[in-house]
């Protein structure tokens, strides 16, 4: 009874803190702009099954992709077991779900296998991060803090798996007569603890059980402050992916009516239609200009660096790193969001996303080749956001590089990016 009360108290505190953290993120979302309407649910379910649950894009790097996919699938199965532990803890019973029969046996069986598979996967990840020199784990955007975060989260997952394996082994020993569920790997480890007394085994089982559940509570509350928030954000982000071809950069609908007025002399002096008066700024200068999707992308990014590793600008030594753009978005929201919430949209800290976080040299280096977006395992869209920031530079500050200004003038004057006369458009026929 007492342990039940303690468990419930810890559960309520954990959920309380988690709710606080998630509400804070939700309040940041309220600062963002609209993106696109959410429809085509069939397609969205399909893309979630393929890209999120099927891990299709992570397999673009087949070997290490497989390791990640195994860790992810393990996480899904093991989460079901964690749910049972919470029900057990609250109700004071043991193995609450065991009357589900073969489904239960299947979940426990795969969970037991995955406990070891995931451990192996995490050890591989840690070795890669700690002892190998892998280009995409470097970069100016990866501060020592990000590296510690990565290793700490991996270590937590490893401890989660060790405690789960411990739970299974000790449980099997204590209930050697008639265990619930099937433990294909743990059963072979039982002889290792053969000499332990019955009482010690019971204690060790409890220690494993409590360690596992407390680690889960801690991990859940650590995630909102870690790059590993992708555990929460990635499936929603894939579900909410843009369903358009990668080549499409959405038009700014907000300025279409303005352009139409400009092009039609009869309406040039009439009052603008509804909607146009709402434009406060063209493009993205700071965090309040980004869309909810850009912000969700930034919460989803786990800094794997597959985008940066394929970026032609980055590979050839330019400053642009697509990964950095999203790290900066999340950081900027953490820095400016609280002020915007407290003091309203006029709040200023005399900084902006462009310049203080992302400099123009990075933005102008993008070739919009979409290698980054193609590679991102979670369908983050980098080029669209980069173009949105260019829009601010061009349309608000007229700060395009000289060559581009010349190109704009040429298009305006003679309908081609080069300085040729429209009269010469058919010259290709004669030569």
């Amino acid at each position, binding site marked *: 009874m007492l342990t039940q009360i303690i468990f419930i108290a810890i559960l309520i505190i954990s959920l309380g803190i988690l709710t606080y953290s998630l509400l804070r993120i939700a309040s940041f979302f309220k600062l963002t702009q609209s993106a696109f309407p959410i429809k085509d649910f069939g397609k969205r379910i399909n893309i979630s099954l393929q890209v999120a649950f099927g891990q299709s894009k992570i397999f673009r790097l087949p070997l290490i992709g497989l390791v990640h996919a195994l860790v992810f699938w393990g996480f899904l199965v093991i989460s079901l077991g964690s749910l049972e532990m919470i029900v057990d803890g609250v109700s004071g019973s043991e193995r609450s779900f065991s009357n589900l029969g073969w489904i239960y046996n299947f979940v426990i069986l795969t969970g037991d296998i995955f406990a070891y598979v995931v451990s192996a996967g995490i050890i591989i990840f840690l070795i890669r991060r700690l002892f190998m020199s892998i280009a995409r784990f470097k970069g100016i955007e990866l501060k020592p803090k990000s590296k510690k975060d990565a290793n700490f989260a991996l270590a937590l997952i490893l401890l989660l798996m060790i405690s789960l394996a411990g739970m299974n082994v000790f449980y099997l020993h204590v209930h050697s007569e008639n265990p619930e569920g099937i433990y294909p790997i743990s059963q072979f480890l039982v002889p290792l603890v053969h000499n332990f007394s019955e009482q010690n085994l019971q204690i060790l089982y409890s220690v494993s059980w409590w360690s596992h559940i407390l680690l889960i509570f801690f991990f859940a509350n650590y995630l909102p402050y870690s790059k590993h928030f992708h555990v929460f954000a990635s499936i929603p982000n894939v579900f909410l992916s843009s369903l358009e*071809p990668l080549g499409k950069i959405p038009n700014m609908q907000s300025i279409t009516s303005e352009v139409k007025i400009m092009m039609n002399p009869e309406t040039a002096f009439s009052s603008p239609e509804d909607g146009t008066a709402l434009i406060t700024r063209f493009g993205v200068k700071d965090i309040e200009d980004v869309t909810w999707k850009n912000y969700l992308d930034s919460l989803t990014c786990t800094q794997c660096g597959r985008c940066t590793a394929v970026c032609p600008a980055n590979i*050839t030594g330019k400053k642009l790193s697509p990964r950095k753009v999203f790290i900066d978005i999340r950081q900027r929201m953490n820095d400016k969001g609280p002020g915007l919430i407290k003091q309203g949209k006029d709040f200023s800290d005399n900084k902006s996303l462009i310049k203080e976080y992302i400099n123009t040299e990075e933005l*102008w280096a993008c070739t919009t080749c979409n290698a980054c977006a193609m590679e991102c395992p979670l369908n983050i869209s980098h080029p669209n956001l980069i173009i949105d920031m260019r829009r601010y530079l061009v349309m608000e500050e007229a700060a395009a590089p000289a060559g581009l200004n010349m190109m704009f003038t040429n298009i305006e004057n003679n309908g081609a990016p080069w300085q040729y006369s429209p009269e010469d458009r058919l010259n290709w026929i004669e030569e």
Partner: protein
Amino acid sequence: MAELAGKGENPEYLFWVGCAGAYDDRYKKVTRAFTKILNYLGTSYAVLGKEESCSGDPAKRAGNEMLFQMQALQNIEILNGYGIKKILTICPHCYNIFKNEYPDLGGNFELINYTEFLKDQADLGKLKTDSSVFGNTSITYHDPCYLGRGNNIYDSPRLLIKSIANAPVEMARNKSHSFCCGAGGAQMFKEAEEGNKEVFIERTEEALETKAEIIATACPFCMTMISDGLKYKNKEDSVKNLDIAELIAQSLNL
């Protein structure tokens, strides 16, 4: 187009030549090669001529949405004025922007990239190519970003190459993993940012590693970049950079 419309004729396709197709000395040859194929096939088509104007792609990707939308609305007015339904393009940037970004502004056309068009003509038995001209010449193919990743067109150009020579020898990074030539996103019109290498040199080196005798491209910007890369590497005499349209036209002795 104005001439045909004056006579009350309605060609099946509008061939959108594009600015590079009209003005770039090297790429004009590609325009001519493609029109030779169209004439050979007896395709009913017209061009806008002096009424054609920039699709707005470089302006849009450089962040000048205002200029892009002005170009787009003007072009849409002209195209709709002639009642145009199907547009053939050689430039993947024009193709992409017409297909994906014009519809929201009221420009709804069926877009056909020339590699898909030629492949369809081959499937229909109208375009009969063989390997009599190119034989065993080894050809590699550079995927333009706006055809490949941008719009999922990877197979048609490869099948066309296979129809006139061997299947293309692939570069290390190909299809959806392909490496940009460096000119997209309006880079064509500005100096590159500081770095330790030019993107087009990196890609040209990769193409040269295949030891192919011809580097095939399917985009005017890619052609400029790869041709410059070949000059830079002093390979312009030993390795040729040809467009898919030129390869097909040559294979037909047009």
